[in-house]
């Protein structure tokens, strides 16, 4: 191999291997479905469930904040930045009160809604095609939940679900089974995210 070619390979290999990467394997964003969190705003009473109607709406909004490189793949000088936000899992933690648990729920799905609901009868996810499933719980496979229910991730990158303008995600939760026993109940919703931003050359 000619020396000049060898030098070019070395130089190219060096540049190709250059990168900078920031990662955080676990960033948890916790959102109270009822605000303030001490309020109970979701109808229960052991009735059949279709959606979690918090504060009378079928959807709720979670701010994700303007984290660096949130815009995904973009050029930054000679470098290209690629960002991924993985949804490790989503959980609901019942705000404690007597007989409040998720034992009656057989299936729960976390959907990404295209817009916020305007009232109890406005369901942006009436047409399922508009609302991809982000995470899901199935009692048959995941076991009976008590006051803590874990929804397994169904997506690899949550980045596309984040509004690039206001950095919010709008969720809707559909469920099957019977609602918790209290007439109204509340829960804290938590997303566990894995964030990685990598700038590579070129």
């Amino acid at each position, binding site marked *: 191999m000619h020396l000049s070619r060898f030098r070019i390979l070395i130089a190219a290999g*060096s540049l190709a*291997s250059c990168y*900078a*990467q920031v*990662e955080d394997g676990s*960033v948890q*964003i916790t*959102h109270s479905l009822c605000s303030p969190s001490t309020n109970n705003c979701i109808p229960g009473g052991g009735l059949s469930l279709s959606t979690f109607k918090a504060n009378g709406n079928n959807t709720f909004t979670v701010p994700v904040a303007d984290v660096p490189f949130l815009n995904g793949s973009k050029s930054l000088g000679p470098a290209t930045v690629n960002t991924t936000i993985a949804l490790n899992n989503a959980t609901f933690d019942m705000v404690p009160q007597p007989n409040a648990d998720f034992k009656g729920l057989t299936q729960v799905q976390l959907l990404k809604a295209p817009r916020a609901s305007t009232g109890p009868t406005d369901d942006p996810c009436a047409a399922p095609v508009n609302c991809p499933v982000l995470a899901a719980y199935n009692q048959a496979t995941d076991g009976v939940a008590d006051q803590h229910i874990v929804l397994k991730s169904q997506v690899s990158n949550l980045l596309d679900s984040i509004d690039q303008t206001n950095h919010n995600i709008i969720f809707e939760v559909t469920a099957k089974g019977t609602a918790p026993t209290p007439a109204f109940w509340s829960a804290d919703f938590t997303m566990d995210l894995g964030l990685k931003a990598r700038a590579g050359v070129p």
Partner: protein
Amino acid sequence: MLAFDAAAQTAPGTSAPETGTVAPDTGATATAPKKVSKKKKTPRKKSSQKAAKKTSKKKKAAHALPNRDMDAQRRNALESLLPATPAAAPAATPEPAAIPARAGSSESPLPADLEAEKKIIVKPPSEPLAITNVVVEQQGGAPPAITHTPVTQASKGHSIAINARFVGDTGVQAATVMFRHAGEKEYKALAMDNAGGDNYSATVPGQMASSDIEYYLEASDRYGHGPSRSGDASTPYLVRVNAPAIAAAMTQPPTKPPERDTLIGIGFDAGAPGGGGFTLLVRPLWWLRLNGGIAYNYAGFGFRGGLSLAPCWCAVTPTLNLDAGRFLSGDFNKFASVSDPNARALLSHVNYTFATAQLGLEFGSQRWFNFYLRGGLAYFESSFSGADLTALTQGKIASDPSTRYKAGDGKFTSVAPCLSLGFQVFVY
């Protein structure tokens, strides 16, 4: 040893060679002039008898023959060869049988011209007599044994010296380097000169050192035994001809390390993004240096260590350098103007670990002082406190009290080009 007598003289130009090749006597005489050949086969005794007959046969003719022009030199030569007994003596021998008719008698012999008879009986050789000693030797021995250390590397455009030792009881003749450029079919011959004793050498000219060269050696003894070879046409030695810089690094053994190596030194360097440092140098082997010391990157201090490989002690020495270290908590707000207090808090105590692999050139003496320039790649790894990240992120959503953040420890990694320059002083 055979000694040819005067009659068996060797014909001109057929003398036996110095190499000792046998020259048979019959062969030598066969090429002699005819007259001489006849004479030499005639024993001297017969020659005397014949001379006596001729004397009586030519008594009368002796006077009738015209005088020949014989020079005095030949005459003297003949006189010295003839025995003291007169050639006419046999003629005086009495006849045993009936007395034949005769001219003259014992009482009144006829006069004889002895000098004239001498002229007739012996004719001197046309060429001067020469006695040649021929040494007969038996051919023996074997081709010389060759001891050779193959040349494997050469510098482009520089002559290539090829040395070998040829040892044989029967001498060495035609010691030759057969060489060609790799890929060529034909070999060129290059005679090897005796360099003293059994050592021979040859030099392939620099202009031939334009690409890789293949060669082998061969030699015979003085009797033609052989040739013996080191390498051969089908499996020659290969000389890699490199660009001068590489060849220098590969073939020059280390400029002879000094008689007494310096072992300990100090070094100063500065670079980006690694910062600078002050290190203690230790050289356990002449080609290996270890270093360790403190590092400073403007944000804070750290420590580091590493090793350098210097394959030669040249005026310009290439090196391979591997280092690693860790910078302790440093304030990176010096490098960035950040107004967010949470971000400033995050940057106020950054620590990171690094490792670098660099190639360098060192100029100067490896023994005492040199300065260098290095370049390569650096790997950085830094961690960020989860509490700091939580505060940073939470601060961005302070307007929504229903949402809380909790971040685990973050990690920053990077591979980036790095450069450094510095100098080293060996003091002991």
